[in-house]
């Protein structure tokens, strides 16, 4: 309950901060919609020459891009702003002030900054879903949407855990401005259904860096082709990722020596 109130406060602070820069609002929204272009163009080009990639058609692959866009909104709106803040804290040694506060440090750094206008991505994602279903000539059943929502939650948890792991790296490597770039670069591969990759890469993207869990599974859920076992696996994977991230975070923060240390 206390944490819920805290979260609300942090969100409000970010909201007010964002409202100060209203011109940025529009520009940001515009840039965000723009970022969809590199996600879709390669897809369109590939599907122009090959109507089917493995078991994926263009309309089905659009579902993956939709989830990719959605998660990118989560990444840019909730995750990356906090990442920049916490890396800055670590570099300058001001993380002390966060650690001194009477609340869980991981919670505090995770909710430090939000960029509300990234909601645009959610609408863009919905747009892409609609486009995909128009291409497919059918719609999702309510059950599919329900399963997809569950899969999406697992995806967000996995993404968040990956982020905590990246932040933990900042404790070990000092000058690391481009950490978010690395994160984005890894995440970029998630715009493709994981099964179009060769076997080795597919295994890598399923078990080591769980990109499959993030976009492919929710997309298949929305299409109604996700086996229950896979859904259970995705949930389990999310929980495992979260636990590992928590342990690594604890270990990293123990290493933190502030600026003077």
């Amino acid at each position, binding site marked *: 309950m206390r944490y819920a109130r805290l979260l609300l406060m942090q969100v409000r602070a970010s909201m007010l901060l964002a409202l100060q820069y209203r*011109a*940025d609002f529009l*520009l*940001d929204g515009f*840039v965000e919609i*723009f*970022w969809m*272009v*590199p996600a879709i*163009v*390669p897809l369109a*080009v*590939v599907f*122009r*020459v*090959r109507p089917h*990639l*493995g078991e994926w058609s263009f309309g089905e692959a659009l579902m993956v891009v939709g989830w990719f866009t959605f998660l990118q909104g989560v990444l840019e709106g909730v995750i990356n702003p906090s990442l920049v803040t916490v890396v800055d804290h670590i570099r300058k040694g001001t993380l002390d002030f966060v650690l001194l506060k009477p609340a869980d440090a991981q919670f505090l750094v995770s909710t430090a900054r939000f960029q509300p206008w990234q909601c645009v991505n959610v609408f863009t994602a919905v747009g892409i879903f609609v486009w995909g279903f128009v291409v497919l000539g059918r719609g999702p059943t309510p059950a599919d949407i329900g399963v997809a929502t569950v899969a999406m939650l697992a995806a967000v948890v996995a993404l968040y855990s990956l982020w905590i792991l990246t932040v933990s790296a900042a404790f070990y*490597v000092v*000058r*690391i*401005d*481009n*950490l978010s*770039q*690395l994160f*984005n*670069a890894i995440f*970029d*591969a998630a715009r*493709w259904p994981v099964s*179009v*990759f*060769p076997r080795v*890469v597919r295994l890598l993207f399923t078990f080591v860096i769980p990109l499959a869990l993030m976009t492919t599974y929710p997309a298949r859920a929305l299409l109604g082709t996700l086996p229950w076992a896979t859904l259970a696996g995705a949930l389990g994977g999310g929980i495992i990722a979260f636990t590992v991230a928590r342990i690594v975070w604890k270990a990293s923060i123990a290493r933190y020596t502030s600026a003077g240390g």
Partner: protein
Amino acid sequence: MSLRSTVTAFPTLLRVGFMDAVAYRAELLVWMLATTMPLVMLALFTTVAADGPIGRYGQPQFIAYFLATFIVRQLTGSWAFYEMNFEVRSGTLAMRLLRPVHPLWAYAAENLAALPMRLLVSLPVAAVALVWVGRQATTHDPVMWGLFAVSVLGAWLITLFVNFAVGCLSFFVESSMKLMDTWLVFFFVLSGYLIPVDLFPHGVRAVVDWLPFRYQIGLPVELMTGAHGTAHALGLLGRQWMWVAIGLGTTSVLWRSGLRRFAAYGG
């Protein structure tokens, strides 16, 4: 800031830049890992091409193309914008202005000095490429390799001038970071970084040929993989250097007018 003082200072700048790159090797490594996108595209397109070639690209061609893309990005990458943006906003640019070397030369030197470290990574990749696809997918023509060298230089200069020009915009607007992001979007799609330019439909290609993006990555890669005859290659090189000239012009105009607006705090 005479030319002579720049020339005398340049070797030192390069040495400092090199030491900087060695000192912050972890950062460099992160950057390199962040540029492995061509390798993902390589994996993707080789599966796509498993049932037969796309356009003129079979599997070996795709492998050669994307390995070359990786190498060219390593050679031509630049992050001068981020440094300029930071220094303009924090006011530390004032420090650079006091030195007897033009700041843009200093940025260029830093960029150039990181090359040996990056070669350390890209050379093994090139070796792997040669072993993997043999020599069939790269050009044999020594002239073409010469043109490749020229095109890499051009590509680097375009990328550097874009960084400078957008960096100079930090003098005028607060959100130059967004502009850089927008540029990067176009760059990723249209440069041949994610997808070879000749897979685009014809109408799009005609436009892309006149835009600067494909000369940042696509042209050197195509020359290396022997995609063009000499005459066509020379034509494309001409356009590339036209963009280098435009970049140089834009940068110098923006730098001059922007610097007048610059006010450092706490100086």
